């Protein structure tokens, strides 16, 4: 019972709860939303124990939806999506709790949108039908658009529409590609189906069209990741979004892009994806992202913008890991995805907390606040170190695995990427120094409050994860290994057969 209903419950519950949030009085909205998101988390937790690493897709539910077009409601998770689902349900309650003080206007609408957004994000990660996936991919745009546009900073309108149009542009081309793919496969096999399993089982014979189809998928996902040079929406959206929006954007939304590569772009078009020129081109873009993101982050006066560009760099690691396509590098990429969600999420929370105290995002507005707010300073230090990738924090494990896995196939790329870790230290450590160390030279900083119990409650789970994954990542790696191995092997095998038969 649980195994069939859990994913649908995860999808449906937030929508129901969102309606509930809209009905209660304004001052109750946040509490209701928090309880609802905790219930959501509670529903998802047993996934961790009942998940069987070796069993492939599980918790599957498959129902007809629009039979006329071969569209079904199919959901399920494997070792790749499991962690994305858990990451989402983990971050949402924290985001809600972290918004308690930040969101003061139209609270009901805000929390209802957060919950709807949760449904959309879970939907993207569990859909095993390409139509369903596309619908979820688009639907989650609307709540985020409103969250940025209504509760964002000064340039929120610009950031919101830019975010929307970039994603919309990429995804509509993907829509056409999905259609063409389904029709091509349908014409060859006689069965028109949007089922992921069916399509991956009946590939081949796409011919030169595969190149264009891959291109459309690539564009959609690359914009979402975002890869250099499609990243320009990200700093705007991240900076203008309210804290919870930034956390969810960085923590979950960016992972949709990389998840899309792992789930769709690679398995559906293995021959194109593993074409040496294309592979080399994408690896190059990933490297540019790592180095360029780091260098640009270095010169940002705005703390949130710095974190935003550091995301570009971190996601570069993920892309490198995916495209090196060895077991270790893919596992590393998945781990970086999780880590980035936790560490960058925590960084955005801290940036938001600083902003709530001083109403400034500028690094220069602070300085020497370690003496005033020791707890906040300690948390910021730990999180920054994890984002840099210091051993014994989660950041180290993921990036190390990516480098280790990429080295056999792309030794030079691994070398360049390794410098990215150094660059990360070069932008985060000075920023850390300027915010919490240095002399306390601004009188307005002398009266800052330290973390409140609510803020501690937001940060402690994140810090616990940082240490836990840094020290003992084995439970996570064990659960993702069969899926990652299966992906690497099948893609490499398919690529070889398709290339040979062409």
């Amino acid at each position, binding site marked *: 019972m649980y195994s069939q209903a859990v994913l649908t419950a995860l999808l449906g519950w937030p929508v129901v709860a969102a309606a509930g949030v809209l009905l209660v009085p304004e001052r109750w909205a946040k509490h209701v939303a928090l309880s609802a998101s905790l219930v959501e988390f509670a529903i998802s937790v047993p996934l961790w124990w009942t998940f069987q690493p070796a069993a492939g897709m599980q918790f599957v539910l498959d129902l007809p939806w*629009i*039979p*006329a*077009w*071969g569209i079904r409601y199919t959901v399920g998770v494997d070792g790749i999506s499991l962690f994305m689902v858990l990451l989402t349900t983990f971050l949402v309650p924290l985001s809600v709790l972290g918004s308690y003080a930040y969101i003061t206007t*139209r609270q009901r609408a805000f929390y209802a949108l957060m919950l709807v957004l949760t449904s959309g994000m879970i939907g993207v990660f569990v859909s095993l039908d390409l139509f369903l996936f*596309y*619908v979820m991919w*688009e*639907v989650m745009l*609307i709540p985020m*658009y*409103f969250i940025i*546009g*209504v509760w964002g900073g000064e340039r*929120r*309108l610009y950031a*919101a*529409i830019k975010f*929307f*149009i970039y994603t*919309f*542009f990429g995804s*509509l*081309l993907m*829509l*056409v590609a999905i*259609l*063409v793919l389904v*029709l091509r496969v*349908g014409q060859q096999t006689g069965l*028109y189906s949007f089922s992921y399993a069916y399509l991956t089982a009946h590939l081949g014979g796409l011919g030169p069209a595969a190149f264009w189809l891959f291109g459309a998928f690539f564009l959609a996902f690359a914009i979402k990741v975002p890869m250099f040079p499609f990243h320009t929406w990200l700093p705007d959206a991240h900076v203008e979004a309210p804290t919870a929006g930034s956390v969810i954007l960085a923590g979950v939304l960016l992972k949709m892009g990389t998840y899309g590569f792992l789930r769709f772009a690679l398995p559906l078009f293995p021959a194109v994806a593993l074409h040496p020129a294309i592979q080399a081109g994408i690896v190059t873009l990933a490297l540019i992202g790592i180095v360029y993101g780091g260098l640009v982050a270095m010169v940002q006066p705005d703390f949130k913008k710095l974190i935003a560009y550091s995301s570009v760099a971190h996601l570069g690691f993920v892309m490198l890991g995916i495209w090196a396509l060895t077991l270790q590098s893919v596992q590393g990429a998945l781990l970086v995805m999780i880590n980035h969600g936790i560490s960058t999420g925590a960084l955005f929370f801290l940036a938001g907390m600083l902003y709530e105290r001083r109403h400034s995002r500028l690094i220069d507005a602070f300085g020497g606040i370690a003496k005033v707010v020791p707890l906040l300073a300690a948390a910021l230090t730990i999180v920054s170190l994890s984002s840099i990738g210091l051993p014994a924090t989660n950041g180290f494990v993921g990036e190390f695995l990516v480098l280790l896995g990429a080295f056999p196939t792309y030794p030079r790329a691994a070398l360049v990427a390794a410098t990215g870790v150094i660059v990360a230290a070069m932008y985060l450590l000075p920023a850390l120094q300027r915010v919490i160390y240095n002399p306390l030279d601004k009188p307005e900083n002398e009266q800052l409050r330290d973390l409140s119990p609510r803020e501690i409650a937001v940060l402690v789970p994140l810090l616990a994860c940082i240490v836990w994954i840094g020290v003992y990542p084995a439970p996570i790696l064990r659960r993702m290994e069969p899926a990652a191995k299966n992906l690497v092997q099948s893609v490499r095998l398919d690529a070889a057969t398709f290339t040979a038969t062409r």
Partner: protein
Amino acid sequence: MNLDLTSTGDLARALLPELTLTAAGMLVLLVTAWRHTSGRDLRIAGWVTLTGLVAGGAAVWWLWWHTARAAGPPSMIAVDDFRFVTDALCLAAAGLTVLVSFDYLEREGLLVPEYYVLLLFATLGMMLMAGGEDLMVVFLGLELMSVSVYVLAGIDRRSGAAAEAALKYFLLGAFASGFLLYGIALVYGATATTNLTQIAAQVRSLSLVQSPMLLIGLGLVLVGFGFKVAAVPFHMWAPDVYDGSPTPVTGYMATAVKAAAFAALFRVLVEAFGGVTAWKPIVWWLAVATMVVGNFIALAQHTVKRMLAYSSVAHAGYLLVAVAAASWAASAALLAYLFAYTLVTLAAFALLAAQGREGERDVRIDDLAGLGQRRPWLALALAVCMLSLLGFPGTAGFIGKWYILVAATMAHENVLAAILVLTSVVSAGYYLPVIMAMYMKPQPFDQAHAGVRLGRPAAVVVAACVVGLLVLGVRPNPLLDLARSSAIVPPARAATPATGR
């Protein structure tokens, strides 16, 4: 139920909806001749009209339920589900327009009960046009519709803009009719018939595919229809006319007129000229030009009404993609899209009509600022409409657009499909600012939206349309089944009917 159209009784049965509507039109004409002074008379005329439309709808339903089909020699009237569904669409659009008009006409002081008569006759014209199996019937229907709508556009005699709209529409429309009629004459000259199926047969048997007279005739017919559906470069009248007409009339023009014209265009091209390939590249380019020009010019508009006018030009472009695909799936897509488009456009114009006394022409997008806080339900409805026009998943607009994409890719028109989605991205640039203004900008002054008033019948229309949009967006199965079962099978492929899809 097979109807032998050579027998009078069966012909009357086949024409039952049209006859019902004619009778209703005459009746309302009589009623208004007696009583045409007060608001009460106006309401009476409205309700009688509505009853007539419902009766017409019942007649359509009766024919559809008994799966009426024509038997015997080729006739002047098509008896198929495609016609019934188009009829139902036009009747529904007219009925909803009547409901929206109740409040509007009284508010604007348009105490002209003849408004409803014209609406009835325009709808009758549309039904003839969409059901015409003969170019002459199509032309007669088109004229009946056009003349009625010319008057409707200028029904507000005190408004200069309305007078300009009516005159412009009339002059250009008359030109277009001339083109169409001349085209029909040339086609007749080449094939010696005006019956659609016989034209196709003549083209085959006399091998007229290259005949210059036929091709010129076909080109002129395309020009005539291009005017009616507002395809670029024949769209020049559309923005001014849509802008100047009373808003419910604009909604009616943008939906019913367009639906009927597209249905007729599709039928004529597929049934009569299915064997002639020359029109396909022309329609292809018309579609591209209409999508690109419509969307980009809409981007530059500041007033909501003009923006919606250009957006309706853009939507004509999407529909032309279905015409260019010209397959069984394309005709189903056309119906599904028209259905979704009718719902959303009527609701959007009804909401616009609520914006203010005599002033909705000048409502700028920025004037909607803060509507989300002031009138949350109204703003929500308008937001859903914008998303549906954009073709966003979860709304019926997406289902329609998706179906057109399916039809286009099935016909191997991948480039056309790509242009469709890319221009849709452009359209986000003018639909989203409406949502943005309503929710993300503060209201300019305290009583900014105090004058917004949506009468009860209009509110019912809007609510029904919006709920319909959302429900069909999530569960489109009934709409799809209806569209699929009512599709026209192109004669060329009739021998090998399309498989399951």
